[in-house]
């Protein structure tokens, strides 16, 4: 079950730049189910934790907030259900779903240069759109749909990490990636409309490229503002000042 009154966050892409920053900044504030592939966040988990070399038997305060690490290819059959099973078994519920995992495969010579854009379409859409859909639907079916009071009391919500590419045309071969983010934006609006019935909000952040043009911390702050706010159905740009 949740540790005290901490909010439970299910975060995908936890080993990436934004996911790692999220975990490092918030692991003492949230109970985090950190879903990752080959990279892992630099935080205490059930697999690694801190020891004080001058008091190795003593307690280290940071170890009280270990992230619950799950390695998963979320596009593989059954993996979304397995992750949700583990998250619910560990914490009993999820208050914040951050769909951060994404595939970014560019085609600098354009979509007509061989088959690479065509070949990348399905795996990119599977992770960038299909996984957020599956996680959202399953979390609703496994708890949120029948807990309206709990959803509202705990301000449960979904934050999808999208991109400005989902609404603008940029050079560099982003067609497939951008299309997936456009789909994610509209999926977000539909999730908000449907999940309003049981009091779960859904929004997206659409950052400019980070950390090159926008500090990662600013993207992180935008996610936190959505988690603590009351808005739903929005796709919020995160751009440099």
């Amino acid at each position: 079950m949740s540790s005290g009154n901490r909010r439970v966050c299910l975060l995908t892409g936890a080993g990436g730049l934004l996911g790692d920053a999220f975990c490092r900044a918030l692991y003492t504030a949230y109970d985090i189910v950190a879903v990752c592939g080959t990279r892992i966040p630099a935080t205490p988990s059930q697999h690694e934790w801190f020891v004080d070399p001058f008091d190795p038997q003593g307690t280290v305060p940071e170890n009280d907030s270990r992230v619950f690490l799950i390695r998963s290819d979320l596009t593989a059959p059954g993996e979304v259900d397995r992750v949700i099973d583990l998250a619910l078994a560990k914490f009993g519920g999820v208050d914040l779903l951050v769909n951060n995992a994404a595939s970014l495969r560019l085609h600098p010579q354009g979509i007509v240069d061989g088959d690479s854009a065509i070949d990348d379409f399905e795996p990119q859409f599977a992770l960038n759109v299909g996984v957020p859909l599956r996680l959202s639907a399953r979390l609703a079916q496994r708890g949120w749909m029948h807990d309206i009071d709990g959803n509202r009391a705990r301000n449960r919500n979904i934050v999808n990490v999208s991109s400005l590419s989902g609404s603008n045309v940029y050079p560099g071969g982003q067609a497939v990636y951008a299309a997936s983010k456009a789909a994610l934006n509209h999926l977000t609006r539909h999730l908000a409309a449907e999940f309003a019935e049981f009091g779960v909000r859904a929004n997206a952040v659409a950052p400019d490229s980070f950390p090159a043009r926008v500090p990662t911390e600013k993207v992180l702050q935008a996610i936190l503002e959505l988690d603590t706010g009351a808005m739903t159905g929005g796709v919020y740009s995160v751009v440099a000042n």
Partner: protein
Amino acid sequence: MSGETVSQAPAWFTELFAHRRWIRRSGPFPHVYVRDVFVEDFYQRLADEYQRVLGARASAFSRVADNYSADGIPLADLRNGPLALFTSREWHDLIASVAGVEVTGDVEGSIHHHRPDSPAGWPHNDLNPAWFAGPAPGPGEVRLPDPSVDTKTGAKSDGVTARETVRAVAVLFYLGNPGWQPGDGGETGLYANIADPAPTLAVPPLDNSMVLFECTPRSWHTYLGYNRAPRSSIVMWLHRSKDDAVQRWGGDRIVQW
């Protein structure tokens, strides 16, 4: 000394360390990993001394073992400068305490230097015997190998007594590898199973970082080779009594040289 806290370590010693948040990992076998072990000033003294030794005493570096690609110089020969830290009782007690292993005060170690493009080693567990001269060291003492006893075989000079111990804790401290980047090679591979063709975890030789682990029948590790640049480390072991090792692991698990 073993197992108990070393919070009473002297200030001159504790002040050498950059922080008190080492990382204990459960896989692929239990080990402790540390980035930025020492404060920058002291690390730089260690690295400078290493470069001085490498330049001034190149002929003292000899092949560590047949078919293994490292040249080494024993820590026992480096007790007049900052590298003496690694043969101090304070360091011994710190490592033993973190590892949580009953140890004897006997210390063996070397600086290992791999030339560029050194071949990989083979997975091994370090659960090997080691012989030291004389009685067990008393509290506050360490015993290092000396010429009167062959550390690996126990062969000894006439009239010398030798004690058989077993390696208990392995320490690898990386230094003198500035600018290492992923792809440069020279990592230490840790394996969940010796049958695995590839390491479960590759520890990079980042300057001022360290990995340490108890030597067990399953502490499989090796040098992964394919280093683009020279790769250097301090490799050392603390020891447990043979009786303790036999009781803990069984005598047949001790790997003879």
